[in-house]
């Protein structure tokens, strides 16, 4: 399951009437930034900039966790932890998995927003 629906539950409860706007804002920001982040990570692997890559993976991990994209978060965490040691091919493979995962997350998040 790409998306954990309970991720926002606590916020929703807490934010009350502001919840929808708050969550929509967060989700939209995520949808706007994640593709860029994935693209950037790809470039960073190719350029061999591992420190930057790890940072980017960390950020995407954090954001995926926020929106409840647990599988994506898991992938990003692996990339963050092993970004300095794995070879480029392995990272690229992992990244393309993350891209596929993101596409599912994106669809679900957009469905969620439309509701």
């Amino acid at each position, binding site marked *: 399951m790409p998306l954990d629906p309970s*991720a926002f539950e*606590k*916020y929703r409860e*807490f*934010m*009350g009437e*502001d919840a929808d706007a*708050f969550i929509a*804002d*967060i989700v939209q*920001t*995520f949808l706007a*930034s994640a593709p860029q982040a994935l693209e950037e990570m790809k470039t960073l692997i190719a350029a061999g900039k591992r420190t930057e890559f790890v*940072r980017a993976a*960390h*950020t995407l*991990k*954090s*954001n995926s*966790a*926020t*929106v409840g994209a647990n599988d994506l978060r898991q992938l990003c965490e692996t990339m963050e932890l092993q970004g300095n040691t794995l070879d480029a091919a392995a990272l690229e493979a992992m990244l393309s998995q993350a891209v596929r995962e993101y596409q599912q997350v994106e669809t679900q998040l957009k469905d969620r927003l439309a509701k």
Partner: protein
Amino acid sequence: MEKVFQLNRRKGHVVLYFWLGVVLGILPPVLAILAELYFQKLPFSLWAVSYAFRKDPILWVFMLGPLVLGAIGYFLGRQQDLMIKLAASLEEKVTQRTTELQESSQVQEILNALLRLSLGNLSLQEMLEQALERIVTIPWLPTDPKGGIFLTSEDNPNILLLRASHNMAAPLLKSCARVPFGTCLCGRAAQSRKILFTDCVDEQHEIRYEGIKPHGHYNVPIIHREKVLGVLVLYVPEGHHPHPNEKEALQAIAHTLAGMITARRAEEDLARQKKFFETLVQTSPAAVVVMSNDHTIQSCNEAFLSLFEYTLQECIGQKLDDLIVPPEAQQQAQQYSQQALAGNLINQTAQRRSKNGRLIDVKISAVPVRIEGEIVGVIAIYHDITELLKAKREAEEAAKAKADFLANMSHEIRTPLNAIIGMTSLLLDTPLNDEQANFVETIRNSGDTLLAVINDILDFSKIEAGKMTVEKVPFNIAYCIESALDLVAAKAFEKRLELVYVLQENMPVKFQGDITRLRQVLVNLLSNAVKFTSEGEVTVSVAVENVQGTLHTLHFQVRDTGIGIPKDKLHHLFEAFSQADTSTTRKFGGTGLGLAISKRLIELMGGTIWVESQEGKGSTFHFTIQAELASGTASLFPRQAQPTLAGRRLLVVDDNATNRLILQKHASSWGMSVSTAASGKEALQHIEHERFDLMILDMQMPEMDGLTLAQEIRKHPAAAQTPLIMLTSLGRKPEGVESVSFSAFLSKPIKTSQLYNAVCEVLASRPSAETAVPQKPAVFDATMGDRHPLRILIAEDNLINQKVAIGLLKKLGYRADIAANGLEVLDALRRQEYDIILMDAQMPEMDGEQAAHIIIERYPPGKRPRLAAVTANALEGDRERFLSAGFDDYISKPIQVEELVRVLQSTVPLAHKTTRPLRLNSGTTSSGD
């Protein structure tokens, strides 16, 4: 004769042919006159003749005959002469050309002969001699040719040695035997690298002898690839005119010689090397065999034949493995052969069999032989190690017998010794005067020492004899460590050493193993640590290093701050009867068996022991053991934080950093929020602007001890009722402790279980500091910002996290400022005061830890905002890392509302603390009782 004839022919024709013409020319006028006279019937008289001339003037024409024919004869003669001359010159050219061709073909023949020589099996010397014999047949040399060949010396390339000679005068053979470069003709030719020609014995001809005959020389340097190999010397007659062809021919001969010499030398080198290696292999005491790709023996040496008792004929062409491998080792031997043929090096010990069936222990080394990258076979070397192994077995048996004896003896000694110790102890309980008591005390102490030594020896010999076994029964590892610590605690206290121990968070504690032996090792390491440390601390820690199913590898560390161990002594440390040095023994005592025993015990428990040490700084002994999890094992403390402890705020005050860290680690793992202070003063600063549910105070601290601090704390209204736990050494309660109401006393070393029980007990009956705040909202709402106003800075580079934090804070009624990295945080702090910073750990430019470090340095506790680390790393130990880096609190991402509220609530606004210091604390003091 021929020449004379030629001369006649050459010069005679013109005159001869002229006179012949003239004579012939007389005939026509005479005949004409006679005919005229006849036909005219005239008398043969002068008158008649003159009449005829007058009558027939044509006769005058006939009179021109001699002139005309003479002229014709002259021209014919000249023509003839020219023809003859031409023919002669042609003949001469043909002869000359023929000679040249003959000479050149002879030179060619010589060259061919030389090449044939080079193909033969001659030695270099023989080859040179025979070559010279051929060279002196050069046709334009004198009929008794002389010459020689010099080669450069192999020791000194600038010396020419006469290697072959032909007809050279006897005195020369000696004086020319060795000619340096630049000397005499050949030396000069070698130096100049050019053919040197002389047509007489001139001043360059330095080497002479009495009776030297006039002659000239060709000196031809023999050069191969720019390197002068020698000089070919040939004699020519005095005044010889050199023809260019001659030089050419000599150059060709020298070239050929050079090639021959080089090739022959290379061959000889190879042959010499081959001989050398053959000798080496043949005379080697190791058995050497060469096996080809099809596993058959190609060659072998004497040692091989004698080791395996075969003759050479029996070996060659046979399969190596068939010959010397016993049936049971066939499969393995085949593997070795195949591996070697696949290009691997083989180094193995195995058993091989001789022809007569004798089994031989051998060390086999095999290397593939590659020629031009292709493996063509294997060289295998066999070392007979039968004797070696036998000696080793004997030695081992002897050692075992010795150990058996020792084990028995030790046991025999121990029994009466126990009786002595027991009786002296009884004796001490009887009425004795001081002197007697002193004597008995000495007897008993000596008995104890002796017993310890004997125990060591007994253990050691038991291990050596292979009689030591370790049992596998369930035990609690925390208890094991704690009981080991108990045994050295008294000594440590005497020396005022801190004893601390750290059990990895959440690790299982019940294992199958031998608690007695494990404790023995720990006690040994701990008592060493205490023994060799005069100040500082001794720490023991344990962590799970590896898990395979239920089998755990446990990693223990015993660290001290003692004298350390010199580098060169480190590797002897675990050997029996060795202490770092004998002076150590004198100063510190001991049998030197402790570590050796520990090492063996650890090995029996499936682990290893090693040490890291820095002289003057201290040592850390590491060891691992393998242990099965005992069934029904749970962690000593539940993974989930206990509800009573979670979120409770603890202040730890201890001057010892390790102790602080350990207490913090434990309490954090139980979900408590921990602050630390290194002195009483710092602790008092903390309670100025923070409230705590519990404080743990160390008794022994410089400047302000625990008791004084407790009294100060009690004077502080906010903390007057906060429960206090006192840490003491060995549970000795300090004087005057009754003046302050301590909730509990804990003795060092801190034992996790005791600490946990004490903290739980103290806090169970109390509501938390936060829950006691009367204004605490039932639900979090926008009023919190009004009730508990705070100036908040969010340090976060990630837009989404910023939005989440701002959104949540807004809902709580707070407005927060944003900084995108550590540098911006510092800038923001310069502009205004903040009560709390929610700081992301990973930011570009300057990360959270760096920023926290600078803030702590710049701002004193009272002026400093609270620092809460916010991190998405859910790594174990992160929390501790941030707390020990100086952060006051820790929130994990994604931020949970409860956590955020907890952090905000436990923050006291900086500006408020002077004006309204008690506002938030008033509830605690009253509700605590």
